[in-house]
């Protein structure tokens, strides 16, 4: 209870208070009412990239979440099917999750390198011309989403647990009824996994809307260079934008307001998912 008050409720409520103030961390906060919220939404002189960051984040969420879930499910199905060496593969597929974000960023900067990158070499095998992934505005979000899918280990483990939870008798019954593997997957396995998918969808969307560490390390590149969100702000996610205002441009009040706008948005999105997405296994 004390933990809840000190570390969760108090910071959240003070952030709410500061979102109604003009505060730079150093001087006393001045009450400005709803001005921060209004300026964020309508004043493109003060916050020229607010809507850009919203757009970037939504695009990222729309690409990264399905890609992550699909990859996780595919990996879980493969792991579930093999009998020998499954522990080794489980470890390998889970490794990206426990790797430090800074190392992940460094590795992927290298993989996406326009001259030496393995991604381009791989595409070259199929005759696809190399791309300048992290410096072409249109390619930045897909490139980031792909890294997220690569890090899908936790979703994969949860899917694997879900697959293990499907009773063998159901599968066997389907086989006896003459269902092909594809039919078995779409008619039996996937519907049985619906609660798992729903859980991963909700948590995945929440995580994607808050993506920060990955873009930060990818675009800072460890060179101590300032992070302005990639070429033409194409990688300026909402939380990176928030971070810049909080700690680089000294507008903590506005940053608190941004965090509450995000909070409300996440609540709405989550409520909508609960209302419209099927959650029960069938």
């Amino acid at each position, binding site marked *: *209870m004390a933990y809840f008050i*000190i570390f969760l409720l108090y910071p959240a409520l003070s952030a709410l208070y500061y979102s109604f103030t003009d505060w730079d961390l*150093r001087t006393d906060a001045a009450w400005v009412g709803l001005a921060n919220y209004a300026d964020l939404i309508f004043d493109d002189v003060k916050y020229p990239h607010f809507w850009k960051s919203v757009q970037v984040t939504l695009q990222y969420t729309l690409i990264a979440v399905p890609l992550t879930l699909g990859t996780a499910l595919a990996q879980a199905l493969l792991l579930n099917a093999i009998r020998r060496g499954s522990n080794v593969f489980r470890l390998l597929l889970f490794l990206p999750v426990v790797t430090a974000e800074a190392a992940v960023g460094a590795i992927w900067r290298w993989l996406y390198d*326009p001259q*030496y990158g393995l991604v381009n070499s791989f595409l070259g095998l199929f005759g696809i011309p190399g791309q300048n992934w992290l*410096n072409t505005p249109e390619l930045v979000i897909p490139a980031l989403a792909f890294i997220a899918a690569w890090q899908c280990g936790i979703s994969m483990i949860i899917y694997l647990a879900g697959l293990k939870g499907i009773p063998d008798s159901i599968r066997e019954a389907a086989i006896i009824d003459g269902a092909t593997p594809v039919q078995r997957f779409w008619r039996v396995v996937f519907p049985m996994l619906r609660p798992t998918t729903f859980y991963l969808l909700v948590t995945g969307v929440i995580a994607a809307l808050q993506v920060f560490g990955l873009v930060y390390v990818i675009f800072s590149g460890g060179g101590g260079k300032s992070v302005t969100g990639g070429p*033409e702000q194409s990688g300026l996610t909402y939380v990176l934008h928030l971070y810049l205002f909080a*700690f*680089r*441009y000294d507008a903590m009040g506005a940053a608190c307001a941004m965090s509450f706008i995000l909070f409300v948005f996440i609540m709405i999105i989550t409520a909508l998912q609960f209302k419209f997405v099927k959650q029960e296994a069938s």
Partner: protein
Amino acid sequence: MIRRVTGTAAGVALLIGLAACGGGSDKAAEAKTLTYWMFQDRTPQAGEVVEKLRTDFEKANGVTVKIVKIPKDDYNTKLGSAIASGSVPDVGILDQPLVSRYALDGTIKEMPAGTVDEKAYYEGALNTNRVNDKLYGLPVDHTAVALFYNKKFVPAPPKTWDELKQMTAKIHQDDPKTAGMVVPKGDGYGAWMWPGIVAGAGGSLVDEKDKKILFDQQPGVDALQLWVDLLPSSPRAITDSDKAFENGLAGMMISGPWDVANIKDQFPDLQFGTAPLPYKTQPAGNIGGENAVVFTKGKNADLAWKWLAYLTNSDNNTKLSQALGGFPTNIAAAERDAATFGPDQAAFLEQLKVAQARPALPQWIQINDEIIAPAIESALSGKVTSQQALSDAAAKTRALLGWTG
């Protein structure tokens, strides 16, 4: 129920513990202790230099200096949080563009008259501490960017913009897989270097006294157009590769003295030289480096200023600034030790003589990142002309600052 009681008790104990941490400890010891915040050491040797300076100062003054080292990327975040929670250091490093913000809202102290002899410091470096004609700190070290060139492609470094353009064109023409030069990008870093180019055409970014934006005038447009003109002979697909210059994929780049050591260390075979930035009408450059300030809410202001004067005096400033990766700001120190810098550093020393401080506006970082950087990017990507990009950026800057000029 029992669990809830223990929980509450633990919470209360925790609160008391937190309060105790915030409270004052022994007053006598406090008067003789100074807390100094700085960036984390770049090398172990740098740590030794700082340690030596600290113990000497402690012995000479009978005090304790507590040095807190923080990674550069986290520094401003930590400092902001410390100030907000009232646990500020007494004295510490502050990024140059932050000095005006912190000075205007009273977070840092004005330097008392007579603390140091102002003439002992390079003017450009000292001016990065000046807000409304008052000094709010001392420059610990300063630095500038210069032109790095690969001797394989560039026999003699270009002095003017025309020579630079011819040379990049020739490098790329001779071998289409080699870029003429790593052209800076429209990001925060590129926007930081750009004022030096503008100054090379005889311009500056703003006129703070008359509240006028100047970067959309001809020198600014020419400076941006220079980068646009260099791009065709310096394709991004080559220069965006990691360490393109170091790997011999690009003939030239603009960077700072820290890369001299990095390249020698990691690419010992690369034959490169450094030269002052090419210019249009006059030699010029930008300035960077570290300033140190005394915080208003810190203790022992007198001792703090003494410490800063000690770090920047002619005896110590060379050693310290070399450890930090920059150059001495103390003229006597720089002149006495000029020989210790070696030929690769000469170009930077040249640049520092003509380096100009950034506008001392509290909003400058935001303008740099959110207005100038995107303007540079939109011109470089060919979406608009240099003039349009800068006129547009100037209008946005005026609106943000509430200026009319």
